[in-house]
């Protein structure tokens, strides 16, 4: 850096007051005191009681501080924070984002400030905001995952740990952890052993059989599954012929991937009727969230939608509430009883083709009005 003086810090006046107070009226409404009809949205996720099934998707909500300017975080079931690693990571060079039809590609490269920064600053803020936290962890080696998990042991307000295994496995340089059942089981098993809280394995859709990877994660002790991470994609500039992302390839998210996500949740639900599932991928409104619940998700994580509207999670929560009230259903668990788990689950299917027509996942009768 040049030694010319940095006026931004020494001499110039800076606009300081960028942060406006929260809109109190919206907050009161959000907390259900706005005189609207209510339904009980609480769910249990791997034994953890959550006030709502709506959570945030890792990497799409930072640690909540920015969104707290737009809405009250207390409406959320939990905040799933950006994946953290042992050391700070700087991530991929820009450009990191390309918009695609009904979606976006990102190549952030897991930029984060490291687990110690999280514990010191972000977690404190989230605890003060009184919102349950699901900590997402990542690493390039099994040892790195374990050391991050170890630091999180007993962290206040951390109700679960989500293991983002969509990282390249530097030990066996071939692929991502989540592309291989053995590597998946290795990481999940080791992480689980150093934590008391439930461990969720976040799986990649870029595999031949997601149920096989899910099985490996569950056998290794995962309490639940997060489905799905982004789909690997790429965009090329036609003027130059060069990749449009600094990281060359990127993760596709948004409405474009929703059918893939619904299929993945459905398929895993068919194979494992009782496993706790956080469903995500392209959920933009309450209808999409209900679709994910019908497919078998116990909780629904909202990702890309937050970028478009910072109050998406609030709108989706209200939408589900309204839907239940309008259909005369008092609680989400009632709805869930209509949708499953099925009394006689179909046998785990090896291929999506045989899973798709199996009866029983959507309710056989339409929701009754009372």
């Amino acid at each position, binding site marked *: *850096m040049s030694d010319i003086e940095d006026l931004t810090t020494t001499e110039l006046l800076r606009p300081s007051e960028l942060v406006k107070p929260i809109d109190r009226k919206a907050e009161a409404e959000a907390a259900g005191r706005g005189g609207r009809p209510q339904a009980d949205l609480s769910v249990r996720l791997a034994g953890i009681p959550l006030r709502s099934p709506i959570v945030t998707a890792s990497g799409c909500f930072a640690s909540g501080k920015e969104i707290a300017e737009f809405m009250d975080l207390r409406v959320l079931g939990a905040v799933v924070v950006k994946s953290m690693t042992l050391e700070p990571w700087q991530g991929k060079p820009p450009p990191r984002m390309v918009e695609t039809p009904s979606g976006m590609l990102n190549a952030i*490269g897991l930029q984060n400030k490291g687990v110690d920064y999280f514990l010191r600053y972000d977690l404190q803020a989230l605890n003060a905001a009184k919102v349950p936290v699901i900590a997402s962890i990542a690493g390039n080696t099994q040892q790195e995952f374990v050391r991050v998990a170890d630091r999180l042991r007993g962290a206040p307000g951390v109700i679960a740990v989500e293991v983002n295994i969509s990282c390249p496995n530097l030990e066996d340089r071939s692929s991502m952890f989540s592309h291989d059942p053995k590597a998946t089981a290795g990481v999940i098993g080791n992480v689980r052993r150093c934590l008391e809280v439930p461990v969720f394995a976040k799986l990649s859709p870029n595999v031949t059989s997601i149920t096989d990877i899910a099985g490996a994660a569950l056998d290794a002790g995962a309490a639940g599954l997060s489905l799905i991470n982004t789909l690997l994609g790429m965009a090329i500039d036609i003027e130059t012929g060069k990749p449009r992302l600094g990281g060359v390839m990127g993760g596709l998210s948004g409405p474009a991937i929703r059918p893939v996500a619904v299929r993945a949740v459905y398929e895993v639900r068919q194979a494992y009727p009782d496993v706790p599932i956080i469903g995500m991928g392209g959920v933009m409104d309450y209808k999409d969230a209900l679709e994910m619940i019908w497919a078998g998700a116990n909780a629904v994580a909202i990702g890309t939608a937050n970028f478009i509207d910072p109050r998406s999670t609030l709108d989706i929560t209200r939408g589900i509430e309204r839907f239940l009230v309008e259909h005369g259903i008092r609680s989400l668990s009632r709805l869930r009883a209509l949708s499953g788990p099925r009394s006689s689950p179909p046998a785990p299917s090896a291929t999506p083709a045989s899973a798709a027509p199996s009866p029983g996942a959507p309710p056989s009768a339409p929701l009754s009005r009372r």
Partner: protein
Amino acid sequence: MKQYTGEVLSHRKHGEEYHSLTVVAPDIAASARPGQFVNLRPPADRYYILRRPFSICRVNRGSGWAATIEVIFDIRGPGTAALAAMRAHDPIDVIGPIGQGFAIPKNRQACLLIGGGVGATPLFFLGEELRAAGKRVDVLCGASRASRLVNTLELKRLGAMTEFTTDDGSVGYHGLVTDLLPNMIERCGSEVLYACGPRPMLQAVTAIAIKYRLPVQVALEEQMACGIGICLSCVAPIYNQKGTGVMHVRTCLEGPVFNGARVAWDRYGTDLDEADGPPGN
């Protein structure tokens, strides 16, 4: 930062190539600073889903409850095309004002504003504020051709001295703004430089500022998914305070305005970490 549904007050063609959208957004107008931007949500379409960021070109705080902000843009793709189709009274979802704007010097008087193409839009707001603070304002503005200079008339009014350059020589000096910059600095006795426009221009302006040992503030434009600080898509490589290391810093909240000397221009496109991160996310 506020989110709300504003209302389009007017949409005008601006010169041959640009569009201007004036939006009633009193809270944003009240607190906006030059260099800050708004994130507009164009009417729905199945090809795009994200908001579009635009520099605040001007604010009108005068009319109280109907205070407005103005943005000027050119049609690049579907998002800007949809915005260009908006008419008076259309509702529009807007978030703003976002980011760190340009800082106004306490002690220095002669400010040189350097703009390139449509990137010059924040100079109007900035120039007015600087003049209101009693500064001398000079303007150097360049573009590929005459029709891509934003409001030359207004820029002439703004600057004690105003110079234009075009790549094709259709107006003003035939060449780049950086060809004229050293001469302009000396003639105007410039003490602070402000620049907004394409990245190669910002880099070249910074190099000249460093040579003249002048403070320079640049407004960076990166691809933004959220524009509110939650996705980390908008980062630029920035030197830390001590100048000992480079970090990826969000341009939406920590920027878009940075000290040009703290931008690690030659680190764009390079990995800052030894370890190669994963593809995606």
